[in-house]
């Protein structure tokens, strides 16, 4: 059985992640898979390289699972994020949420991806036609309650 949270260089297996949630008895499972897109900000993307501070990134995923459990106690959540080089169309992140009812499964999945983008120490190095650039998004601060509330609002919209 795969762990519920993982930072891995191996290709992601969403089916294995869903099985790890042991969804028997649940009413719904949602999965979200983030893919390497072929364009970004008008640039033609060739491939991405993801770098992580592995130990803290794993803690970040665990923290998101804890936050989601506090918000949606009946939901079981799993998150796997891949690092290293990925080609266009490959999966960089897989999220699965199992819940007695569909609404909470959707909300918890959405919350997880928003929080990943806020607090988990993972970085995209984008290689595009004509150059390369590190993508920089949010300042990773799990204690920033404003950011957490923002993620919650998106999740529950």
């Amino acid at each position, binding site marked *: 059985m795969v762990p519920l949270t993982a930072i891995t260089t191996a290709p992601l297996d969403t089916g294995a992640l869903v099985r790890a949630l042991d969804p028997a008895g649940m009413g719904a499972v949602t999965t979200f898979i983030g893919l390497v897109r072929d364009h970004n900000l008008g640039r033609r993307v060739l491939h991405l390289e993801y770098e*992580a501070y592995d130990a803290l990134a794993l803690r970040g995923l665990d923290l998101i699972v804890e936050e989601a459990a506090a918000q949606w106690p009946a939901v079981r959540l799993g998150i796997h994020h891949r690092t290293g080089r990925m080609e266009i169309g490959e999966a*960089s992140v897989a999220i699965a949420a199992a819940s007695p009812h569909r609404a909470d499964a959707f909300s918890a999945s959405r919350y997880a991806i928003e929080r990943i983008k806020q*607090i988990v120490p993972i970085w995209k190095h984008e290689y595009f036609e004509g150059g390369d650039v590190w993508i920089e998004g949010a300042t*990773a601060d799990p204690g920033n309650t404003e950011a957490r509330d923002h993620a919650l609002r998106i999740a529950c919209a």
Partner: protein
Amino acid sequence: MRVTIRLFARLRDIVGAGELVREVPVGATVGAVWAALVTEYPELSPYEKSISCAVNADYSRFAAIVADGDEVAFLPPVSGG
């Protein structure tokens, strides 16, 4: 005392290494470790407002005091997903 400094993404590129070992005074804060690093690599300076930090792979604050042997990480804005 000595600390290991971990740098990632663009910060790692600027310094040219993902890991440095530096001598710091007893009682130094994470902020003091960063300030010394900026003195050594002034190109890091613009990141002052946007980085976050970790000590021994746990989220931390600039005001935290570091101990001998600690791993102090500086994290540029993240872009996972």
